[in-house]
């Protein structure tokens, strides 16, 4: 699977096999409270399975400043 991460710097990470979202976020050391995981037009919950051929985006839900 390809995982596109947009923040803080855009990058793509690849994993092989089928894994649930929470596993992917754990590998990336990302707090699930701070991001949304997008596949196509759908949002995925932490237990949703991501398959080997999938592409997903991990998008930060947090913004800061004044």
């Amino acid at each position, binding site marked *: 699977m390809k995982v596109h991460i947009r923040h*803080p710097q855009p990058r793509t990470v690849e994993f092989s096999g089928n894994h649930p979202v929470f596993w992917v976020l754990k590998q990336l050391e990302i707090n699930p409270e*701070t991001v*949304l995981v997008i596949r196509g037009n759908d949002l995925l919950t*932490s237990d949703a399975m991501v398959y080997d051929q999938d592409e997903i985006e991990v998008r930060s*839900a*947090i*913004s*800061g400043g*004044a």
Partner: protein
Amino acid sequence: MRCIKCRGTASVEVRRHNSAFCRDHFLEYFENQVRRAIQEQEMFRPEDPVLVAVSGGKDSLALWDVLLRLGYRADGLYISLGIDEYSRVSRDKSAAFAEARNATLHVVEVEEEYGFTVPLLASHTRRVPCSACGMTKRHMFNRIARDRGYAVLATGHNLDDEAASLLGNLLRWQTDYLARQHPVLPAEQDGFVKKVKPLYRLTEKETAAYAILTGIDYIVEECPNAAGARSLLYKEALNLLERESPGTKHQLYLGFLEKGRPAFRQAGERPELHPCAQCGEPTTAEVCAFCRLVEQARRTRERRAAAAALPRADGRDGGP
């Protein structure tokens, strides 16, 4: 994970309510939370003209979208801060959003009004950018809403914003801020329009989910000036707690409103306000903080221009 309403596949998990929702039921949940906030806090009535401060980001556009869906008379205000490409993109996103919904968007340029962009205001006054930005926006929001006849100014502050702000105020025991912190700041005769935060019951993640599920094209990139902002540090700390103990942010902020704030209100005294000698906006000083900021930036610019015009010791021009 299944939707608690229809048992369909869930799109969004709301751990603090031990719930999960499919797309349609999440949008229903979101609308209900906003409706509840507006009604419980008596923010505004359906016939009141509301001005929504929009930045092109997920929170403000989600707020404007949900208010329009709920049938409120909501127009937008975009203040162009002059942060290069970021401002151009965020302005384009705001304008496209308004056009697609046939909604009214007011656009105002800080530089046109005051002769400085926000980055220049910050650098000429040696302030951190978020400080100059916040001061500029607060000043302009109030003036423009009042001058253009809006009863209420609505901002997209969410539960994460409010909990982070509360944490910051608690860590420094800023009792005057603690006494004032609330999702509604009432209109006052001394020149402040009513300000409301209808998203205060919803987390930042829920607001982002709403924006994505409704197809709102918002600016995903973070403001380049926000890196290192203290509010981000507080949000990170709160989200670490939230991961281990769902509901922490909700309990902190809503618990404060119910149990903590009244004590600070009783103890606090509100200083008397009067019109700023320069701009007429309400202030506790003779000249308001924003006018002092602009004046300081002007002096710095004049000083730098004068220094550049002086001949250098080596005989060459001072240069730019």
